[in-house]
Each structure stands twice: as structure tokens, then as C-alpha cells.
């Protein structure tokens, strides 16, 4: 145990060194890791020394396109299958660009729907969760329509999707916003005719520090045990916090094996990035175009 703690401390110090080297990449990745749940966790990635690859590859690739990293379970992994899957993903992205987005971003998705009038359905909402890797990647949008909470899970690579727009690109303090289900409806209400917001090209993705007021219990989950950052004081009696304290697992962040099993080794990440680096120009151009589009309405 002591060994593990020492090793973890060494690791942390190395990560701080890394974050000094690569500002804006490692720091945020490590800051978020402690609170990550169902979302795939990734180690800080040190770019290769190959100058060609460095030129082509954006530094924050893992954060922008997390579904390109395969699921970490060794019993389900196969290099050829992953390669074919990535080819299919890139093929789909060349037809329908998938913009950069995060949990907390406000998005609009248009889907072909045989039962809708006009055969298309557009939904606006906040992304509350994002998961899975490869062609199975999905995200959940939430909104309150006519005082009724609505959540829709979209598969990112489904050909039914006509377009994905990001109306407001931002992050929140938590990696999952499932607690919005138990928050006051105002926090997940967004107008369906929302305008895309202005954002400067190349600016870092802002983090929205908003704190959400939850409704009184009963809740879907015991939020006092989840170490949430983006909620106001829960206002519970002392016994709830005592119980939460008992269920805490503060040692897990030092569990190197757990970390190892939940991540793709760094060398393999480099291989994957190197493999798709010829396609960066395409992906980057869609990313940039998306941002410029958002600038246009404000000018007019």
C-alpha cells in the first residue's frame, strides 16, 4: 500500500511536470480524472518526437475525439477490428462532420424520422453524458419541453443523423450531468430556436462554473455520495454526510492497476494517432468551419 502511494505521488509529480510542459493538455485531463465515471479514462499523452506527426496532430486530440480510442478491455480487443472500425468512422465523418463537443455543451441534432412531419426531427438540449468507443459511441441530450423533461440518446455514427450542431461549446465542472434530472427544470431548459453562439477561433473551451440547485429528495441517486462540484449545498441532515463519508473510496485514485486496466497504453495511443494523422486536415477543417459559422450571425 505504501509502495503504491509513493508510486502514485511520483506519478502525480511527473504529471505536474508534464502540465508545465504542455499547458492546457495534461492539467485538465488529470483534474477531470478523479471524478470520471462511466466515461473512458485516458492517461496524459506525450506526443511523439516525429516532427511530421507533431505538425499534423492537435495536442488535445484525446479530449476532442475520445471515441477513437478503443475500449480498454483486453478480452474484447483486436487490432484489425479496431482499424476497420476507425476506417468506417472516418468514412462517416467525411460525409457528416461531427463537431467537437463536451458534456455540458448545448447541441442541436437533426435526425431522419419516418413518423415526423417533414420526415426530420430537430432536438436541442444539453449534453449530459457521453460514452462508448468506436462506432457504438453515443451521447445523451436533455431538455425540458412543455414542463416535461426529455432525454434522447443519439448514436454518433448512425446514418439516421442528418447533422450535429454545437450551439454553445462549453464544459461543466462535472464529467456527467445526470444530476440535472433532479435539479430544478430551469437548469435544463433551452429554447428550441436557440442561436449558435459566437466563439473565437483557437480560443480554449470555456468551463461554465454554474452551481445547480437540486430539488428536495427523493432523488434518482444519492448525489451526496458522488462528490459533485456543480451543485449548490444539498441541505441534507448530518447523517447523510456521515453515511457518504463511510462509502468514500479515497484510495482508488492511488490504485495504479485500476488506472492501468481502464486506459489504453500510451504507445498504442500514439499508434492510433499516427494511423489517423493523414485525416487530420479533414477533421480539423470541419472543426474550424464549425467555429467560423458561429461567428457569422453576430456580424449580420
Amino acid at each position: 500500500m505504501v509502495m503504491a502511494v509513493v508510486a502514485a505521488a511520483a506519478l502525480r509529480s511527473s504529471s505536474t511536470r508534464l502540465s508545465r510542459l504542455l499547458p492546457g493538455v495534461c492539467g485538465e485531463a488529470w483534474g477531470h480524472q478523479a471524478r470520471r465515471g462511466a466515461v473512458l479514462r485516458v492517461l496524459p499523452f506525450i506526443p511523439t518526437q516525429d516532427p511530421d506527426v507533431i505538425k499534423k496532430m492537435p495536442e488535445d486530440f484525446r479530449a476532442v475525439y475520445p471515441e477513437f480510442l478503443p475500449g480498454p478491455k483486453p478480452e474484447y480487443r483486436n487490432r484489425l477490428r479496431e482499424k476497420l472500425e476507425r476506417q468506417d468512422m472516418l468514412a462517416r465523418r467525411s460525409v457528416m462532420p461531427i463537431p467537437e463537443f463536451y458534456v455540458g455543451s448545448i447541441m442541436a441534432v437533426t435526425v431522419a424520422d419516418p413518423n415526423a412531419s417533414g420526415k426530420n426531427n430537430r432536438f436541442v438540449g444539453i449534453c449530459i453524458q457521453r460514452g462508448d468507443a468506436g462506432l457504438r459511441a453515443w451521447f445523451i441530450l436533455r431538455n425540458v419541453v412543455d414542463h416535461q423533461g426529455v432525454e434522447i440518446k443519439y448514436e454518433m455514427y448512425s446514418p439516421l443523423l442528418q447533422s450535429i450542431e454545437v450551439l454553445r461549446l462549453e464544459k461543466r465542472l462535472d464529467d456527467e450531468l445526470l444530476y440535472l434530472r433532479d435539479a430544478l427544470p430551469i437548469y435544463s431548459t433551452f429554447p428550441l430556436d436557440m442561436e449558435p453562439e459566437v466563439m473565437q477561433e483557437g480560443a480554449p473551451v470555456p468551463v461554465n462554473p454554474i452551481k445547480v440547485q437540486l430539488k428536495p429528495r427523493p432523488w434518482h441517486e444519492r448525489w451526496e455520495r458522488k462528490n459533485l462540484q456543480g451543485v449548490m449545498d444539498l441541505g441534507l441532515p448530518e447523517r447523510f454526510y456521515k453515511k457518504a463519508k463511510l462509502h468514500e473510496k479515497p484510495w482508488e485514485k492511488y490504485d495504479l492497476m485500476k488506472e492501468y486496466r481502464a486506459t489504453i497504453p500510451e504507445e498504442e495511443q500514439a499508434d492510433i494517432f499516427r494511423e489517423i494523422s493523414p485525416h487530420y486536415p479533414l477533421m480539423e477543417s470541419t472543426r474550424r468551419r464549425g467555429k467560423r459559422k458561429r461567428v457569422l450571425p453576430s456580424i449580420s
Partner: protein
Amino acid sequence: MALPKLQCITHALKNLSLLSHPDQRALVCVNQVRAMSRVKRRHTVPPFWLPKTTRTMYPEHMTPENEVFLKDVIEEKYSSPLKTECWERGTWAKNSMRCGLIGRKIGIYPMWTKDGTRLLTTLLQVSDNQVIKYIKPEDIVQGKRKRYRELGALVIGADHIDPRIVTKEYYSVFSEAGVMPKKKMSKFLITPNAKLSPGTPLYASHFQPGHYVDIAGITIDRGFQGVMKRWGFKGMPASHGVTKSHRRGGNIGSGGDKARVLLGTKMPGHMGRERRILRGLKVWRINTQHNVIWVHGPAVPGGVGSYVYIYDSVLPDHRHTQENHPPFPTCFQDEEEVEEELYDQELHTFREPSVQFVEK
């Protein structure tokens, strides 16, 4: 019973008709006695009469130059094309049976059809499949039915192994055909018009998108399991006075006249690691460059990385017709141009534009 081991092996090989000396084939290993009332369904070790594949390695103290030389020799020996001349290729007729392929399950991922329906597909990689031997109908064990008396067999091997690590007996199986020793072998029953000369490579394009296949494999080994996992029993309540039997099966038989447990009663025991055949799976897509076949559904027996055997479907609805039959006896990919990606007509390829519904 006291046959020396090697002799036993050769006997067994003759039984399997892998060695060719028709005059010696009459020698059958008759000493084998099965004492069990029922034949075991699973074995943890291969049967003793199968020849050992790999030999015991010992230090040979080879110089690096010798290593390189050996590698060159192996490369030279196996890089040459077919040793024997190609046999005359048969043509398709009603009730013809082609050989199948040995594949490897490499994963599962979703695809979508042109009407937007999502389906899970299993990816099967066909790696280094080659014909090793053709066995004539009169040389294999005769069946009682006329249909089976007319069938020959092709022995197919998959995945190369280093010829330096295999035993002499195992190597001799392949040296006749002049192919590299294989990791996995299987015998496929065929009609004589589907015979192929030894050494012929087989590719994923042996099948075509839109056709149906049967897939056999060994299911995942789950070990000794209780009735809830093995047979889907409901178990017993979690509370209301139930103690120590929440996951037990309960009663297994009545008293009275029967006074015994009926045969086949569902009870705890070993689960998985059995040969299972899944029939009638549609081939959705084929990659001829990597030799990968996408078949319908996530339920192909075995885990990721396990070997499976792919056959033309025997289901009456999926039989081939004169107009619509796959390449016969196989697709000779080296001689003709084949597209890299073959898709079923109904499948949405990711390069196509998004699915849209038209208003009527």
C-alpha cells in the same frame, strides 16, 4: 492395448485418412475401449490418439548466420506457388456442396441498413486458409445413406506456424501438399465436383454478401455454474424467510412410483465450451484485402479470438440456385479482379450520404 505411442498415432492417422497408403488403411485401432455409459461432452485435454503438434524445444546453439540461412530456406520453400498442377474445376449443379472456411472471430460492431435499422455484426477473419488434402469418397468412412457415400472431403488449414517447431508426424501432413504447417485444420465434406488441388489458397471472397452461412464454434467456457446461470432458473425469493437457498434450483423429482431423478434434469454443472452451430446468418459485407467477413448478429459461438468454421447454409430457405450461387468451387482471387469492399445491397456503407425518408 499396449501399442507404443507412435504406432498408435500412425494408426490413428490412417483412420483419419490423412496418410495415404490405401493398402494400410485396413489397420484400424481396435483396442480403444469406451467404458463410460455416456460419451463425455467436453475434454480438457486432446485425445491421446491425436499426434502432437509441437515438439520439445532444446537449445541448438545456432549461429546468427545459420538462423538467417534457415529463415531463407523456409521462405524460399514456401513462397513458391502450387506444387501440383491445378485440377479441372467442376461446375455447380443442384445439391453441390462446397468446402467451408476456417475463420477467427475478431469482434462485434454495429452497422446500419439503408432504411436506418441498426444491426450488430460479427467480424470473422479468414487468415491463410489453404487446401491441404482432398479425400475421395471411397477413401473416407462410408455412411449408410447414399448421399453420404457420394461425398468426399477437403482438409483445410488456417494460420501458419513455424515449421521448425512442429513434430515430424504433424509436419508430414503438410509436406505432401507443400504448404506451410497450419495451426488449425478441419475436414469439410464436399461433392467431388467441388474438389480443389492441395495448396489452393481460400479467401473471404469464397462467400458473397447476401448469402447465408452456418457457423460452428466452441462456446465460451464458463466453468461450473449453478442453475440460475446455466438454465435460467428463477431462484428463490431474497427474503420472506428464505435462508441459504436464494440461488438453488429447488426440487429435482418426485417420490412415489418413479422414485428417481429423471434423465436430463436441469441441474448445476459445467457450462459452455461445447460445439454449437448457428445456422442461417446473413453475410453483410466482405473485405477482400484483410479477408474479413461481416455476418449478422452478435451470437457467433466463442469469444473474441476463437476459431469458427463457416459453411454454406443448409437451411432449405437459403439453398443456392442456378442463377444465384456463390463462386464454385471457390473464388480464385489471384486470377480475377475482386473489389476491395463488397457490400450487401441493403446495407448502408459509411461513405454514402445519411439516410433520408421521402414524404409520400
